[in-house]
Every structure is written in structure tokens, then in C-alpha cells.
């Protein structure tokens, strides 16, 4: 059923009895051409592009919990492509271009809102890095502007740009095409579109092992029985290293809790996304009216989706340093996700030591924005067995060859 105002109106007249499930409650079959482990945004996008770009629909996406319940449900929904290095810029810009037509393509309003992303500079080093990023982005065909403090204030009135602040705002980069999207809708939109093309999405189905023969993967053991597959793709974010261990190889990944929180809903007050590296906080306002606020990772490694309160304390100090008028707003809900961080803060997309077992992970604190592009290139890998040109620089081998794509600097607030 195509979604539109017309179908909505028709359903309203008939008591909304005609709506069908967005995706089927599929029971796993015994064999698939491709099994994708992890039904988050990246896994579901992979399934969708396998079907759409490569005509492969004999696909199961296995999810140990509820679909989209990991980092897809826990991130701060920021979308941008202003990465420093050419390799990252190409990948994230491909993703951003997909975002721009995605709601219509998926027939699902993802509430993608290109309201602009500001990265504030608070010291001379920030200014230098910001201006470098602007110029590098422009060379890569990515929209980027450098703003002075007065322009920052004009674009985003609640920011305090006074020179007497502890860390005054000296300027900012702006990517106008950046913004936010409704995170759950991304998972649901891809799930619905993949399901419509015949993909089985199997929830409450945890992978407990891999069947590997002669160095080649044959299938996965799950809590719902053995499932054979010609090719298997792992897209499990913070738990990637757990899956890799089950398959018998190691990843250069550290899993950390990353917390975020929202305020109570408010009438519009913050027109764009604001990120600050030096003061260490990022914030936007959701369409529902909540301020969505994130900061740095918890220092310790963990698989528990909860963090420590002192991280929230420093996050709030940072927020109020930028927005003193937000002091009387209230934190309504806080949560944590587990992010998978690579030594160079770039993802791993590629082959593993096991034949026909592929991996897509290491997106760290910034994977949400990459969802469409990540699915696109990973589907290519699963379909053809060879990396998509955009993904080639992100192979696992780079940690032995040393050809790293170090985005620590460009990642801004570790995001």
C-alpha cells in the first residue's frame, strides 16, 4: 500500500481498518542466499539495497531483540557529511545525497530536516581546524561555510557568543545541508521497504554461533535454530567484537557506552544543530520539541547500555556554557548505547578472515548519518563479493597496512 494523504483520508473514513503491518513477523526459513546479522538501520538498509540494487531478495535480517532497538534508537540523529579526509567525505556525502531523496523513495516520511549543522570554534586551534575543514570540504564538493561569531548568533539566537564566556565562540563551520532525521522512522522505513521486496526480518532471533567449514561460512546458529546461508554480513555495532569472537577472529574495536538525553518538549527554540568540540556537547531540537543532547563517551569499555552520571554532569555544564538561557529546562529522559570505536575513528567495511563472511562496523559515535550509504556499499560487497569503490579504503586490512583514515580531528565532539 502506497502511503499518501489520500490513503490516510480513505482509511480515516473506514476506521483505519485497512492498514497492514509495516513488516511481517517472519519466521526464519532454513536457508537463505544472504543472512544479515543485526536489524538496525545499517542492517535493514543493507537488505533494502541488496533487493533494490542487486535484485537479491532471498535475504534474512536477524535481530536478537526488537528491530531498530540498538544504536538506531539511541543516537542523537545528526546527519552531515563535512568530514575532513577525502575517503570519508566521499562516503558520507554519498550517504547525504541518498538521505535527500530517501523519504520519497521509501514512501515513508523520515522527517529529514536539513536545518544546518554548526560546529563551534572556541580557541585558535579550533578556528584553524574549522577553516581547514571548510576548505577541504569545498574541494570535495561538499557545502561548507565559515561563520564569525555575529553570524553564528544570527543563525542561532540562543547561543551565547559574548567574549567574556569561559570559552568564547570565535567562529563556526556550517553545513547547511546537514540536519537531523527521525531515527526510528529510518529503521521502520527501510524495514517496510525491504519487507515489501521479500526480505524476511526475523526479530527475537539471536545468533549464537557460526558454522564454518574449510575457512568458509556455511550458516549461523541462532536461538531459533540453524540457518544456512551462502553469504553472511555482520552489522552489529557495539557487539561486533562479540560476534567476531564467535566466528574466531578479532577486531580492533573498543566498545564504550555513549549517553544522550532529552529535555521536556518545548516550542521551537533551537533552529539548527549545534556541536562544540572544545566545550564538548552537541544539541538539536526534535520535531516533537525536545532538545536532544549528547556529549562524549564514557571512558570505560562496556557492553551495558547505561552510563555514569558524572558524564551527564559535565555535559550539562557544557550545554549551559553555550546556552545560559537553558538553565531552567529539565532533563526528561537519559539513556546509553554502545558504540564501536576504531583506532582511527573510521568504520570497517569489508571482508573478514572467513570466506563469505563480511563485516560492517566501527561507526563509533557517528553511524546514524551513514545509514543509507553504509547499506548501499555493504549491499554491494555482499552481492558481488568485492568492496564498493567508496568502501575500499575502509577494509579491515588497513590496520596492518597502516593506510588509516584518521577522523579523530574531524569527528568533532567524538561524534
Amino acid at each position, binding site marked *: 500500500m502506497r*502511503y499518501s494523504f489520500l490513503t490516510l483520508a480513505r482509511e480515516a473514513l473506514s476506521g483505519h481498518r485497512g492498514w497492514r503491518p509495516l513488516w511481517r513477523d517472519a519466521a526464519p526459513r532454513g536457508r537463505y542466499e544472504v543472512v544479515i546479522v543485526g536489524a538496525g538501520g545499517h542492517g535493514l538498509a543493507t537488505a533494502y539495497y541488496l533487493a533494490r540494487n542487486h535484485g537479491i531478495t532471498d535475504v534474512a535480517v536477524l535481530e536478537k531483540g526488537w528491530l531498530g532497538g540498538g544504536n538506531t534508537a539511541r543516537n542523537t540523529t545528526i546527519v552531515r557529511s563535512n568530514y575532513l579526509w577525502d575517503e570519508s567525505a566521499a562516503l558520507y556525502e554519498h550517504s547525504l545525497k541518498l538521505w535527500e531523496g530517501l523519504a520519497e523513495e521509501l514512501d515513508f516520511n523520515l522527517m529529514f530536516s536539513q536545518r544546518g549543522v554548526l560546529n563551534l570554534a572556541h580557541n*585558535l586551534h579550533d578556528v584553524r581546524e574549522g577553516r*581547514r575543514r571548510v576548505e577541504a570540504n569545498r574541494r570535495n564538493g561538499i557545502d561548507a561555510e565559515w561563520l564569525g561569531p555575529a553570524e553564528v548568533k544570527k543563525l542561532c539566537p540562543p547561543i551565547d557568543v559574548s567574549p567574556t564566556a569561559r570559552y568564547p565562540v570565535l567562529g563556526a563551520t556550517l553545513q547547511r545541508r546537514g540536519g537531523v532525521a527521525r531515527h526510528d522512522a529510518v529503521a521502520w522505513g527501510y524495514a517496510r521497504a525491504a519487507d515489501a521486496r521479500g526480505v524476511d526480518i526475523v526479530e527475537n532471533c539471536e545468533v549464537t554461533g557460526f558454522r564454518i567449514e574449510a575457512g568458509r561460512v556455511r550458516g549461523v546458529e541462532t536461538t531459533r535454530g540453524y540457518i544456512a546461508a551462502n553469504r553472511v554480513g555482520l552489522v552489529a555495532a557495539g557487539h561486533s567484537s562479540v560476534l567476531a569472537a564467535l566466528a574466531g577472529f578479532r577486531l580492533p574495536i573498543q566498545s564504550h557506552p555513549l549517553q544522550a538525553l532529552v*529535555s521536556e518538549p*518545548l*516550542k521551537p527554540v533551537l533552529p539548527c544543530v549545534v556541536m562544540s568540540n572544545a566545550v564538548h556537547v552537541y544539541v538539536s531540537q526534535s520535531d516533537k520539541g525536545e532538545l536532544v543532547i549528547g556529549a562524549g563517551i564514557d571512558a570505560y569499555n562496556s557492553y551495558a547500555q547505561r552510563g555514569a552520571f558524572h558524564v551527564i554532569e559535565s555535559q550539562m*555544564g557544557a550545554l549551559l556554557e553555550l546556552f545560559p538561557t537553558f538553565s531552567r529546562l529539565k*532533563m*526528561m529522559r537519559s539513556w546509553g548505547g554502545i558504540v564501536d570505536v576504531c583506532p582511527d575513528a573510521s568504520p570497517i567495511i569489508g571482508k573478514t578472515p572467513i570466506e563469505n563472511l563480511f563485516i560492517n562496523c566501527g561507526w563509533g559515535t557517528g553511524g546514524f548519518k551513514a545509514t543509507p550509504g553504509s547499506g548501499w556499499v555493504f549491499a554491494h560487497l555482499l552481492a558481488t563479493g568485492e568492496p564498493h569503490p567508496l568502501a575500499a579504503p575502509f577494509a579491515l586490512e588497513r590496520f596492518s597496512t597502516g593506510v588509516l583514515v*584518521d577522523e579523530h580531528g574531524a569527528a568533532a565532539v567524538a561524534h
Partner: protein
Amino acid sequence: MSQPFRLPAGGLIDRTRTIRFVFAGRAYHGHVGDTLASALLANGIHFVARSFKYHRPRGIVSAGPEEPNALVQLGLGPHEEPNARATTVELYDGLVAAPVNAWPSLRFDVGAATGLAAPLLVPGFYYKTFKGPLWRPLFEPLIRRMAGLGTAPTEPDGDRYERMNAHCDVLVVGAGPAGLEAALEAARTGARVVIACDAPLLGGTLVDRAERAEWLANAVAELSASKDVRILVRTTIFGYYDDNYLCGVERAASGEPGPRERLWKIRAGRVVLATGAHERPLVFADNDRPGIMLASAARAYIHRFGVAPGRRAVVFANNDDGLSVERDLAAAGVEVAAVLDLRDGEAVVATEGRRRLRRVETASGRRIDCDLLVVSGGWNPAVHLFCQAGGTLRWDDRLAAFLPDRARQKLEIVGAAAGEGLSPPGNALSVPPRRRRAKCFVDYQTDTTADDIALAAQEGMRSVEHMKRYTTAGLGTDQGKTGNVAAFVLLAAARGVSPAETGTTTFRPPYTPVTFGAIAGRDVGALADPVRTTPLHDEHVAAGAVFEDVGQWKRPRYYPRAGEDMEAAVARECRAVRESLGMLDASTLGKIVLQGPDVGSFLDRIYTGRMSTLAVGRCRYGIMCRDDGMVFDDGVVARLDKERWLVSTTTGNAASVLDWFEEWLQTEWTELDVSCTSVTEHWAVVTFAGPRAPALFPELGDMRPMRVVETTLDGIPARIATVSFTGGPSFEVSVPAPYAEALWRAGLAAGAVPFGTEAMHVLRAEMGYFMVGQETDGSTTPLDLGLERLVAWDKEFLGRRSLRRPAHALSGRRQLVGLKPVAPVIEGAQIEPGPGHVTSSYRTAVLAMVANGRARIGEEVNVLFEGRRVAARIVEPRFASPGSAPVPGPPLNVTMPQMAATPMASVRAAPEALERLLGLRPETPNSVAEGDGFRILWLGPDEFLIVGEADLSGTRNVDVTFNREILHIADRGILAKGCGLDLDPRAFPPGRCAQTLLARAQVILEARPEEMLVYVRRSYARYLQDWLADAARR
């Protein structure tokens, strides 16, 4: 004055004190002891809000923190607060409140027009529509305006906030009968007890139901009289974190001076959760009209506030406790028109009344006029904190509720929170509507109806988490306290399974919303982050320096004289260094003393170059890499003695380098005998640079570059190193921090021109010296910087293996070069053909990192920035060649002040060895031994701080007398505002010491009989003094 619904007697309000308040533009009166909600009800006002989505008139449902409807915009200007719950706002004189989400007024709200489109506004309607190009320009702004409740204040906060740490044996959360009993029991054992209660008064339901008044009075009296019981009223424990660490927020009573709210961080040995239960409404047609209220709320308004919630009531419940509210109503003079027991098939199936309930219709067809409908759908134990602590729940059919099952932390859950004493409801929580279109609300605040949940299930939202996200049930400011369980039950019913199978959504902190300001505490404004200053800071301020932030440090960037702009000042400063004499405050650079027989081999492993061959009295420049082979930091290593070395680091990396050293020494290279001691703040450093510098030190005039001597200046120990970061002669002079001013003034007297970081950067760029973080960006190797000569491949060092990886043999790596552009270019500009970028750009020197740059010297390139293109030539990165010939000038004539200071030394030794040498040692780590004229603080496994005069010969020690300042604090309560340790004298008696955090500064605490000593790093002392002064004031 009239409060028509105020009962003639009863309640805990102070009837002698009448206060005035304004709601929705009209003035009313209430009493001290009222909440805004009770005062409104006393005035007959039920209709106080409009709902989130349909803008339906809404009334006061509850009398506590679970309130879904009665949200108001409270206060004005710097005291404005959005989304305050009228049921918990204590009334004060002059209170001004307005409804949220209603325009132009509560009565005539244009938003109510959305009600007409209600059939279209089903869950997820916005996912199915507005997908096209009109989303951003039209629909999104419309949705954003419609959504949201209150308005963010536009003025900075007029109040301040406090933080407090507390420790106890037993923390009791909740002060109803179960909580009071637990607190009494614990108090009688002599335990340290904290009891926290979110209401202004202890008693909980005993107050709301006017029961057991005498027992309550005795309990409160006993607890108040117990020395080790801390009673926190108006305090909501909102978060239960790991290791029995709980956070709460205490609100000041109105008019109370001091902070508006106080964040409590409580570490408890054992926790008793007596958090009670929330009554839930029933789900039936149009169950949201003003005048429909929970039975528990009706009781509270009658007994706690002396307010009749209506004149003529209908009671509708599925449990005995709910039905029994009839007696309270009758006793308060409210006519009870009907009592409907859902278990007998009696039910309300329709309600009428636009802005206030007028009539209900029952299943048996009766139409009953009433202005109050009291409902009860049973109780949900408040298991929020229990679940935050990792506890699991089980579904209980008898109570139709989720009850605590297994606890994960050291806690007990008691009373109603554990399901004890709750009145079992009939199973039904909802009643089918008579008319198909009638709305049966499950979650009032988010306007989620029973139909919405059924539709979500129909659309495949089978998980409670999907249902929540799709319908938004439970996502309001009340986080579904009244509505969630009904939503879960309805979803289970739609799926044909038990609620035990669907379960609940995750309970997340906070229990109720917490003010941002309270979480930030005093870490705002000037105290947002420590300002670190050098001992010369006042000199710089007096000289009119313009500062830059380098990490937390304030460093002088340049010293403009009258009429000078930055360019002129910097040019003058540079000229002084090149032609005569400049002086720089270099105190911020990190300084680490390394001692032990293995320092040489340790430094060989740390630096790319070889350090072990360094002779005593010599300095060597070195680079250290991370294990990925990328440049991490650089600096000069000086060998002061056979087994005593001094490493300098960049300003920004001082702490990271020390951590890096310790990490390798403690975890990987445990066979090496090396001790590291930071002396960054013990020494102040002034660099005298320029051809006249040698003349300052006639007795050292022939000292060659890269030498170091330990000497004295006017009898004070000093260290002089011939190390240059600017080219040309340079003498780096270190003196103990308090003598820096005398040294600086002597420099001025000798004609030295102060120069700041900007001139320093220009001068080093002219020499082609790279800056960590400016030329390097975490992807730069020593080879990229052209510094292969600093890499000793024939030894092991961190990063060596990585540097041998194939990537570093590939062509195309960015390499450090100079640029000669035809016009000024900006830092960050891109280079074509590239890739490459400008890293440093000054009038006299431009540095860049350019692909294969070393092989492209002489090549013409373009520099691109701001849409422009500037031609440039790649050149060697060297723009100046200052001579080394000294120029005559006056010598440095320093007169050091007299001052007395308690000596402090860091000693590294095994405890037994220390005892042999000094005759005593502390008994345990973190304790103090007192000797004759000195004290020994045991800080780390082999680390001691000796305070006072002691003969330390034969020990491995470092003088750190001036590394820290000692602050004397009599009131431990002030320290508890910024220190997480248990500072109770029983836990931290005299003779104890600890290294910890106080506010945002690292400190050593030492308990003395009369006071606490706080040893703070000198550069943080000003910050900490400001912090302490602020904490003492409030």
C-alpha cells in the same frame, strides 16, 4: 478572597496566611501549604491545560509527580520555568502561572481545531504524509509549532544551584508508612540514615488519607531527634546508578534564601525503596474531561489541602480502595451521586461537558449530573528506581500490575512499591466506548488512545518499545507514570498474549524531570572550567596582555602597547627576539622528573630518538609517537644526573604524556625501575631569547646550545637550559614558582621585551619548526615532518612497527614544506595540485603539509581558500637564519624575595625502606605518619609526600614544595559540595589522607584534628579558591 471549594476545616495548610497568585491572567487566593493545583481547585478551577495533540481541555488528575495534564509555564523573566507540574508547585505569594500549549488563551485555543482532523491524526500519520518537497518549507515548521509544550525562557537563570555529596549506611527513598518504618528501624541500630521524600512533609499516604496521625507525629519526632538521620524533604531521588549510587534533587521551599535546587549525590551501603504506588485511571470514552480525577488525588485534596474537588461526584472504580473514596467525599460534604463498581459490570460509558464535566452516562443507561468523576483503575507500584538499578519485574494477574522480582543491587523494596497492601482490581482497565469515534485516553499527556494502541499492533508494532515509539505513549514529561501499564495491557490484548509476555519498556533516569541548572551546579559561568594561570599571570595582566586559551591555561598571546594592533605588537616582539632580547613565560610547558637506573632505556622506548646516550648536563630534543606511529608529542629531555632526568612536554599534552608514561610503566614494562613526578607547577620558566640573552648570564656566557645547569640565582635554586624554539641564542631559566616575579622583573630591568605565544609561533615557523597539533593532526609521522634524523631505527620504540608498515613507503603522503605565496593566505587553505593544506601562515613564514612535498621544492602551486586562488612556490621550510653571535648588554640582576615555605618532597620508596630511613611510616595507604617536624602522607603503592623538614638523603625524592598550595578548610561541609569521598570524621578521621577530585581540580586531602588541608596544584589554586568562596557563600 473567596475560595468557594475550600473546606471549612482540615488540611495541613496555614489558613492564617492567605496569598495571592495569578493563573492564566486572573488573580486568585490560596494559602501557605497549598500547591498551585490545590489552590486552583479551591477556587473551583479544574480546567488548567490543553492537551499535546488535540488541544482538548484538561483538568488536574493527580496530586503528585505523576501528573500528566496540569503543566504550566511558571514564573517570569529570570525565574520562568516551562512545563512545571501544578500538582507539585508549592504556592507562594505572587506566583504567576500560565497554561502551556494554548493560544491565544486556554478557553479559546485555535489549536483545538486539530480536533476536527482527529480521524486523520492517528499514530504515525506523519510518517505516511508530507514526504515531498513541501516537508521542509511548510509541514515541518507547522508540526514544530504545533508540537512542544512550554516555552524556553529567554533570560539567563536568576537562581543558583548547589551540589552535595552524601554517604550513608541506609538510604530510604520515600517517607510513607513503609519508608518511615524502615528509617526508624535503621536509625535505632545507630546507622547513618538518609530518608528522602519528594513532598514537603513526611508521611506520604498517611497525610493524604489523614490516618495514624499520632504514630506519624511520633515517627517524625524520633527521626528528627536522631543525630545520624538526615531528613531530606522536597527531595526526589531521580536516578539509581551502579554501586548504590543514587542522585536526587532537593527543591528549596519558596522564599528560602540560597540555591533554588540542590543536587544530592548519595552513596549508600543499603537502599530501601519505599517509593509507593501510582494510582491509574480507567480507560473509557472521553475520560479526559476536567473534573475527572484519581481517587488518591481526591483524598489528598480533601485531607492534605482542605479542598473539596467538586460538589456532586460519581465514583467509578475497579477496586475496593478506589470505591472507598466515597466515604472521604461524603465526609467532606461532597454529594456522591453514584458509586460504580466495574467488577459488577457498572461503568461510565460516556461523559459530557466541554470545559468541565457536567454529566456521565453509565452502562446501564443512567445519565447522572455531576461535576466530579473520581476514578481508580488500581495501582502501579513505583518500580522506576528498582528497575533503574537493574531489577527485574514480574506480571501479577491479581493486582494487574508489574511487581518487583529480582533485585540486582543491595536494596530492599517495601510497602506499596513491592505490591504490599494494594487493593486488587478487577482485570479490566478499559471499557469499550458506546460511540465508535469516542476517544478513550490511555496516556493523557501524549493524547494516546486505546484505538491508537490497537492500530499500532495492527500495523506490526508488536514490541512494547515499537508501540511506545509509534504511538508516543509514555514519552511525555510524566514518562507514562499513570498510563503505561494500561498501554502494555492493551497491546497484549491486541496481540492475544499476556502482559507477562509483552513486558514493559525500559525505566530510565530521571524519575521526574531534573533542572539542567541543578545538574550543572556551580560549574557554570566563571567556574565552568578551571582557569589555570602561571605565577606570572598578574604581571601579564598588568602589562595589558591579550590572552589565548590553551587547554585550561590562559597564556599571553601578545602585549599590545598603546596604539598597536596585533600585527604591530607581534612584529615588535619578533624584532626584539631577533635583534636584541625577548622574554616568554614558558611555565605552562609540562615538566616531569624521571628517576631510576632505567630511565635511559625507558626514554629510548618512548622517544623515536635515542636518549640513553645523553650525557649529564646535556639536553636533547625528541619526538614521541603513539603506537600507531603518529606524532603524539615533542619536547626536550635533559639529563640532570646519572639517574635523574627532566622531560618537558607541550602545554596541552602535559597530563596525557604523564599518563602515557605511567600506563607503559605500570602495565607493560614493569621490569623497568623508573619513577615519574610532575613538577610542572613547582617551577616557573622564563625563556630569554635573542642575541643579547647570553650577556644576561656572564658566568655562563659561553654555554653551548642544548646544555643544562643547576645553579642558584641570588641564592635560590635555579636551572638554566640553552634550548631554543625560536632560533638564535636562548636561555630557559627555571626558578621555584614564587620567585618568578623577581626573575621577570629583573628581565624587564635588563631591557627584555615580553613576547607572547603569537610571536613565538611566528619565530618558530620562520625556523621551520613544527607545532604539535598545528602541523600535525594525528595522521602525521616524524618522517612526514622530515625528521628522519630523529628516528633511531636500530632500537625499539613505540610506533616503530607501525612506521614500518607499507603505508609509510607509499608515495603521496603529506610532507612539511614552506610556501612562498604571492599574497597572504589563511591557515587551512587547500593546495593544488595536492592534496595539501596550509598549516601555519604568518607575514614572514608559511608552512604547509603537501603530498610528496619534499620532492616538489621549487614547484609552483595554487592556494585555494574562500573561493580565491593564490599562486605560491613550494620552498624549504626555513625563512630565517638568526646568527648565534651574542650582542653585549646588561647582565641579569635578580634580587630574590625572602619567603618561608613548608618544604614538601615526593619520595618514591618501598614502605619498609622508607621506615628504615626515616624511622617511621604510615600504617596504611591513605594515612599519615607524624614524625619530628614532618609528616608522611602515603599516596600510592610506593609514593609518599613528606611535608616538613626531614632528612631525605638516601631516598629517591623530588622537591615539590611549590607544586601545590595548601588551603586550610575548617568546614568539611563545604568540601562535600565538590568531593565524592566520605568526609564524615568517622570515615575520614584525623590522620587520613587521600588523592581525589575537589570540584574540577585534583587535590590531596589531609585530615588534621581541627581542619582539613587541601593540597592543590598551584595553577588551579585561584580557581579552587574562587570555587570554595562561592561554595562557602551558599
